[in-house]
């Protein structure tokens, strides 16, 4: 027998109570790890970003539009190598839960801009030459069982057609891959898009992506673009892709603040519940702790035993929670990656979770440990 086995045996004296407490701690840590991963994805931006690309959005809100006429003006700026447009299309496939990002793009420009997307040249040519053509990430096609030549109906929410119809039909003409991300993506022709929407909404874009021939002048070029449109009807805000990603996420709210509030509430509840359980467990064991002191355990050793039980309980619960979150992540990541980019557990998240479990264990265990320390043998034995 060792101190650890004594501690472990004490912990499981009432198995049901300990298992329920472990479950509550575990669930708290599942939430913590998943929310941390989501928060990091939102605030961390996409992994493909490079400073040789800038994003030009409407100055005041990314839900505004920019006029297509800006394209030529931006392209004319010295140091700008290529400009292409994208818009947030929204819409769902068959069912509201089947959501993935869809962008109307200029096919050749887009794949020139995003060289990290790997597409068969023949399929790119087919995309450029087919008015209602669409290309999708290979994983997305696999997910929905789409094959080349399939007609894919999308129900629009933001962009009804000029005739009032909300059903957009696209012919799948190709698929493409991306080395460092599995996030889904659906691309279709900007020309088809802008000619199909209501008249007063044509020739508008959501944002510009600008490739620089002189990346070292990125800050200067960004200022130049914004000053170009500063006094126009459509002022712009130029940023890196990182900043754009954060700006986009901020439309949903302050993700960091939201996750902090949720986790504070969860952990506050856990501290109260588990703390109460530990206090109750201590009350039941007062004579036993007195016996330990009687046979020679010091006050410090007895209080360390009680504190150790709380820490072990929280660390074991925390580790189970991390493992459970790891198992759950593949199921929920594809949904969240549509908004937040690649979601994964960082070493910081795991280290924070483990550290937090120790801290919660200390918070929960410190009061019972001090009570155990103050216990006088004679008084405690009298309660037997």
């Amino acid at each position, binding site marked *: 027998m060792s101190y650890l086995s004594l501690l472990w045996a*004490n912990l499981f004296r009432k198995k049901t109570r300990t298992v329920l407490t472990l479950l509550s701690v575990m669930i708290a840590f599942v939430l913590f790890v998943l929310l941390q991963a989501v928060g990091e994805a939102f605030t961390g931006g996409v992994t493909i970003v490079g400073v040789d690309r800038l994003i030009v959005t409407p100055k005041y809100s990314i839900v505004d539009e920019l006029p297509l006429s800006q394209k030529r003006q931006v392209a004319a700026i010295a140091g700008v190598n290529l400009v292409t447009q994208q818009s947030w299309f929204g819409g769902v496939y068959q069912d509201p839960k089947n959501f993935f990002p869809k962008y109307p793009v200029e096919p050749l420009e887009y794949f020139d801009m995003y060289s990290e997307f790997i597409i068969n040249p023949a399929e790119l040519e087919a995309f450029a030459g087919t008015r209602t053509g669409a290309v999708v990430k290979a994983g997305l096609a696999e997910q929905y069982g789409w094959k080349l030549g399939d007609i894919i109906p999308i129900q629009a929410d933001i962009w009804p057609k000029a005739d009032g119809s909300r059903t957009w039909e696209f012919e799948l003409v190709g698929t493409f891959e991306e080395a460092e991300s599995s996030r889904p993506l659906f691309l279709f022709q900007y020309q088809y898009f802008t000619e199909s929407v209501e008249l007063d909404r044509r020739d508008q874009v959501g944002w510009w992506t600008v490739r620089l021939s002189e990346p070292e002048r990125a800050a200067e070029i960004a200022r130049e673009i914004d000053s170009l449109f500063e006094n126009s009807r459509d002022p712009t805000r130029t940023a890196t892709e990182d900043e754009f990603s954060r700006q986009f996420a901020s439309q949903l709210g302050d993700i960091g603040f939201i996750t902090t509030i949720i986790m504070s509430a969860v952990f506050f509840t856990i501290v109260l519940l588990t703390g109460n359980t530990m206090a109750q467990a201590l009350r039941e064991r007062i004579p036993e702790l007195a016996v330990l002191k009687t046979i020679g*355990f010091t006050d410090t050793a007895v209080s360390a035993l009680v504190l150790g039980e709380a820490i072990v309980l929280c660390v074991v619960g925390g580790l189970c929670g991390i493992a459970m979150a790891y198992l759950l992540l593949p199921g929920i990541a594809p949904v969240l990656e549509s908004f937040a980019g690649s979601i994964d557990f960082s070493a910081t998240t795991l280290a924070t979770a483990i550290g937090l479990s120790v801290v919660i264990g200390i918070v929960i265990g410190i009061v019972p440990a001090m009570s155990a320390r103050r216990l006088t043998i004679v008084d405690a034995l009298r309660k037997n």
Partner: protein
Amino acid sequence: MAIVECRDVEKQFVKGRETVEVLTGINLDIEEGDFLALMGPSGSGKTTLLNLIGGLDHPTSGLIRVGGSDLNELSGRALAKWRSVHVGFIFQFYNLLPVLNAQRNVELPLLLTNLSRAQRQKNAAIALEIVGLTDRAKHKPGELSGGQQQRVAIARAIVADPKLLVCDEPTGDLDRETADEILGLLEILNRDHRKTVIVVTHDPKAAGHAKKILHMDKGKLVEEAIV
């Protein structure tokens, strides 16, 4: 040679505004190898005196020296260490840890020593053999009878080989036959293993197993009898 020396020992408890005199002017020598029974009515101070001799409490005044150590001079930590080496405790309600089996309950005091795990297990097995419970080593207290639990408690008390055993009503929760077995075991420990045994009891038959009986009343030693 006296293993326990008490000189002018007084003990008071404060209850609210009232000070209760529990022990008054206790002077006592207990020789090494003795088997002493402390008798007296409830509230006479028997258990309080036992707790003081066992180093579980401090006297309000007076001197208690056990095995040459002045207990008043030991700090809390030093006193805990001293108890683990010099005294074995046996209680009325056994006070075993219900989550540990008999072997592990007996091994518990040895966690405070530098013995290896194998040596601890060996010593615990020997202690269980002395009290005749080798075959129940893997049983938890809830799976043992009262007498068997008290035997485990005795094994735990002797496993660190202390010279002094202090027993507070060790047979108070047992039937006559089992009580006699336990007292017989204490006699063997006293006679064959040279343990000094102090037993607090209400039971004259239990006291009959001792070599010497001390009577207490109202916090004072009132009578001594050699059996």
